[in-house]
């Protein structure tokens, strides 16, 4: 990984995607698109109860809204996630349901509805193979669903343990280990040693006593290798964690996550979203309308690598930045969503 020098880079705005009539909460890039001649696709979800599908026109290079998924959710759609194959889109809503959509002959149809949560579903995530789906809610629980034939989803387990609203769920990029973060200031790790037994347990709770956050943890993201994790919080810090995953992948039991470093002093408002690109750049979106990028620092300390801010894009949006996501594939773009109702596509460019 090349080490990037500060002050040599800028975030260039490629396009602003308008259309949603309320705040845009989140977005998801379809990882099966954007290569081999297939135009890149992304989905965004909003307080206007709809999900919009955007596609980049290969010739004009501009993004157009290809579809509006409406008349299904009866309240805000808070989160969306494409299945790894790119065929299905899961959308989580404040109406306590999670809908599964499939593109059938050019139209997106809702092929399944997952019910069970008592109130607002906050996040939805697919595991690496697309066999499992996780959802979390203000009802403090995390549900794991198994994708069955015919777009049927069966609830495998209901995980309780968080003391408050669960903000986000995220699967590890290579192993079937589930992570959840909450208003109760903790990150919980869930694992089923024997997947067929449906016996999911909380194998680790990362709280204040483990150098964890001192306020709501809003999001977390993994690096490409999956041996490091970054979390962001209302406590104005980003925390980097590491684990010996080779040990775990070789079947040697659970390997716990340890605190590596805390990035503080860079944010003065709540950090709502964080995403680690495959190239190793960490993007953060915060309540001060700014987007910041961080990279590992060349000046490694004795205790291990440290991180530094590569750039700060002030006024990236007119209001709170709710989500930041790097596109998959080579030469990634960064997409951000905001309370201002727009999605912005950015390109990281050298100023030299």
């Amino acid at each position, binding site marked *: 990984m090349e080490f990037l020098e500060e002050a040599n880079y800028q975030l260039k705005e490629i396009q602003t995607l308008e259309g949603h009539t309320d705040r845009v909460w989140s977005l998801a890039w379809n990882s099966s698109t954007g290569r081999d001649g297939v135009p890149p696709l992304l989905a965004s979800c909003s307080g206007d109860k709809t999900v919009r599908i955007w596609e980049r026109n290969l010739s004009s290079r501009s993004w157009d809204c290809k579809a509006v998924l409406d008349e299904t959710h009866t309240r805000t759609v808070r989160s969306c996630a494409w299945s790894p194959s790119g065929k299905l889109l899961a959308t989580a809503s404040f109406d306590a349901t999670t809908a599964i959509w499939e593109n059938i002959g050019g139209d997106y149809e809702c092929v399944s509805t997952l019910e*069970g949560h008592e109130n607002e579903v906050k996040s939805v995530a697919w595991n690496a193979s697309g066999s499992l789906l996780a959802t979390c809610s203000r009802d403090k629980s995390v549900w794991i669903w198994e994708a*069955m034939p015919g777009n049927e989803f*069966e609830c495998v387990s209901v995980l309780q343990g968080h003391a408050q609203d669960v903000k986000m769920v995220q699967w590890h990029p290579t192993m079937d280990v589930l992570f959840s973060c909450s208003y109760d200031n903790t990150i919980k790790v869930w694992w089923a040693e024997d997947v067929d037994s449906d016996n999911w347990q909380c194998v680790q709770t990362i709280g204040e006593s483990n150098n964890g956050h001192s306020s709501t943890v809003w999001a977390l993201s993994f690096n490409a290798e999956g041996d490091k994790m970054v979390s962001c919080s209302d406590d104005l810090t980003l925390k980097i964690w590491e684990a010996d995953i080779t040990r775990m992948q070789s079947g040697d039991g659970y390997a716990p996550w340890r605190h590596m470093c805390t990035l503080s002093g860079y944010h003065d408002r709540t950090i709502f979203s964080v995403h680690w690109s495959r190239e190793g750049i960490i993007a953060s979106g915060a309540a001060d309308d700014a987007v910041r990028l961080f990279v590992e620092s060349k000046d490694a300390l004795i205790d291990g690598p440290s991180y530094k801010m590569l750039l700060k894009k002030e006024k990236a949006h007119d209001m709170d930045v709710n989500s930041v996501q790097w596109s998959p594939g080579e030469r990634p773009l960064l997409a951000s969503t905001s309370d201002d109702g727009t999605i912005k596509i950015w390109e990281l460019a050298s100023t030299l």
Partner: protein
Amino acid sequence: MDSQQSNNSVQDIFDSSLNLEETHFKEGYDEGYNHGLTTGKEEARQVGLKLGFETGEELGFYKGCVDVWNSAIRVDPTRFSTRVQKGIKQMEELIEKYPVMDPENESIQEIMEALRLKFRVIRAALGVKLEYDGHPKPKDIEF
């Protein structure tokens, strides 16, 4: 003249006036205690009846659902997935396990919550709009 006897009777007279505070305290305490015992018992009886009824009704509801589902499974076992059937079995075990004759048992809260959760999962899996109305729902505060 029996000076000791006269001394004792003098002491007795003074004793009762000296212990006036203590006697009155004891009298009041006894009155309050007995009153509390009677009203407390009555109130506890009412609470016990109410809680007992609610618990019994909820347990009965789940038992009824389990019985219907089991009958359906006997008619056509293929219509219910293995997971759902396992869940129904687990619900049955929980109902069996509930200590109806031991209200002070620490696990009653845990078992009831596990039952409610299992019920929600099975209900979602079967796609039925079934709801236990007896259980009062806390007023949801929305932000």
